């Protein structure tokens, strides 16, 4: 079967695209989720309870639902149809960003909240300005935040429903590991499907180990941390 012959080239590009899309989504999620999550954890205002409840709800958004909504928005007749993003990597990044942002936001929020309770008074007593205190608390919460990033990345890269809908699984363009696995399975190429599956597993595993052990270990050693 020609798919087995072209395995190396094609599968490599599929893996790289997966990484590219999920990494971009995570970066977008970091840029939005960490500041807002930290802000929600560190401030009090009326109606905050409702926003927090909304965030926790969004953390459990079914990816397929995200996919359908993005599909309709980007569809030729949809409100964002003029972008011509449907069936493009951008659409997939968009879907994955919407998937991971609430996860990063929510986990940042709970991590920061836990530290806020512990450190606020000590920081105030040490003469920290509100900014210095906030920054210190966020840094103290880094383990929780990194764990959140690992979780979010795992969710993004292993997600299939939304990227299939909005990306379209186009060969050499929007085919990522999960959609390739579906396709190979449907074509009866179980070995190829399994191989990609293990690559996916390995990437998830290595990345999580790196996040949980590597980065945190490095930060521990760093002296001029503040």
């Amino acid at each position, binding site marked *: 079967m020609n798919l087995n012959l072209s395995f190396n080239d094609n599968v490599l590009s599929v893996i790289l695209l997966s990484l590219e899309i999920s990494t971009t989504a995570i970066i977008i999620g970091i840029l939005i989720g960490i500041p807002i999550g930290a802000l929600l954890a560190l401030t009090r205002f009326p109606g905050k309870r409702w926003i927090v409840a909304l965030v926790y709800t969004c953390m459990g958004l079914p990816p397929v639902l995200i996919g359908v909504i993005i599909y309709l928005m980007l*569809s*030729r007749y949809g409100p964002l149809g003029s972008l011509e993003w*449907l*069936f493009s990597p951008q659409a997939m990044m968009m879907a994955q960003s919407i998937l991971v942002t609430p996860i990063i936001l929510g986990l940042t929020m709970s991590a920061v909240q836990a530290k806020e309770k512990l450190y606020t008074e000590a920081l105030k007593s040490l003469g920290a300005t509100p900014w210095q205190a906030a920054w210190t608390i966020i840094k103290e919460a880094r383990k929780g935040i990194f764990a959140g990033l690992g979780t979010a990345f795992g969710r993004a890269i292993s997600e299939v429903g939304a990227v*299939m*809908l909005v990306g*379209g*699984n*186009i*060969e*050499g*363009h929007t*085919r990522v590991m999960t*959609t*390739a696995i579906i*396709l190979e*399975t*449907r*074509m*009866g*190429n*179980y*070995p190829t499907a*399994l*191989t990609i599956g*293990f690559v996916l*597993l*390995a990437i998830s*595993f290595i990345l999580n*180990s790196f996040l949980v*052990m590597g980065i945190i*270990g490095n930060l521990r050693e760093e002296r001029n941390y503040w």
Partner: protein
Amino acid sequence: MKRISFYIFSLFLLLGLLIGCSSAPKADKAAQDTSKPAAQATDSKDKEITLATTTSTQDSGLLDYMVPIFEKQTGIKVKVVAVGTGQAIKIGQDGNADVLLVHARSQEDKFVQDGYGVDAYDVMYNQFYLVGPEKDPAGVKNVKTAAEALKLISDKKSTFISRGDESGTHTKEKSIWKAVGINPEGEWYVKAGQGMGATLQMADEKGGYTLTDEATFLSHKGKLGLQVVLQGDPLLFNPYGIMKVKSTKKSDSADQLIHFFVDENGQKLISEFGKDKYGKGLFVPSAKKR
């Protein structure tokens, strides 16, 4: 503390490697060593058989219409597994189904020749359509044959969405390209790797052409801006075959299902299917022992 984490990490890595090494060869074996039918799952209920078929028969609603009638007549329960043709045939090879209903003649013949299947029948056929945007940028409406049409599309580099999933429709499409002597490649040739419905939607969104089976197209017609730009070429004929998986343990029930589809009564049911909804039958009965 750090040391412990390191050991745990190593352990996981080792575990990962072990799983990776032991499973991949197993999968290869399953793929190659198909001459030995996999042991049939211990199904206590003899009155339950598995039909592996393509998504088109399921999506068109044909099976929802036929299977309950069969179940009522015989008391045999039919589990329908609707997948791509490639996977349907693989499921048959692995002995995980009792009957196949598919549409990829060359693959079907190979399945029988290789000794996996017996009692193959033609059941019915429907047509493939070449569909495209109303504007018809490649001017396909002016030609009469599928070969000419694809050549035009390729020459003009108009967007063409291919199923790209080794399905029956994709196999058919590839055979036409082969007949024209073109190896489609480039930006304009999009390999969707999805089912027919999703591929039609993609063609609609991207303003491209695609090859579709009649049933799926008719059932999606209202929601799409696509039009039939070519039909009637004998090359676009889409015959379905039904056959028994040789390794089945439920040979009698399998025979009954096959005969239900190819007997006079079943053929009549097939011819009537879809008339009320689309004004014409979606499938043309054509039962014949191969």
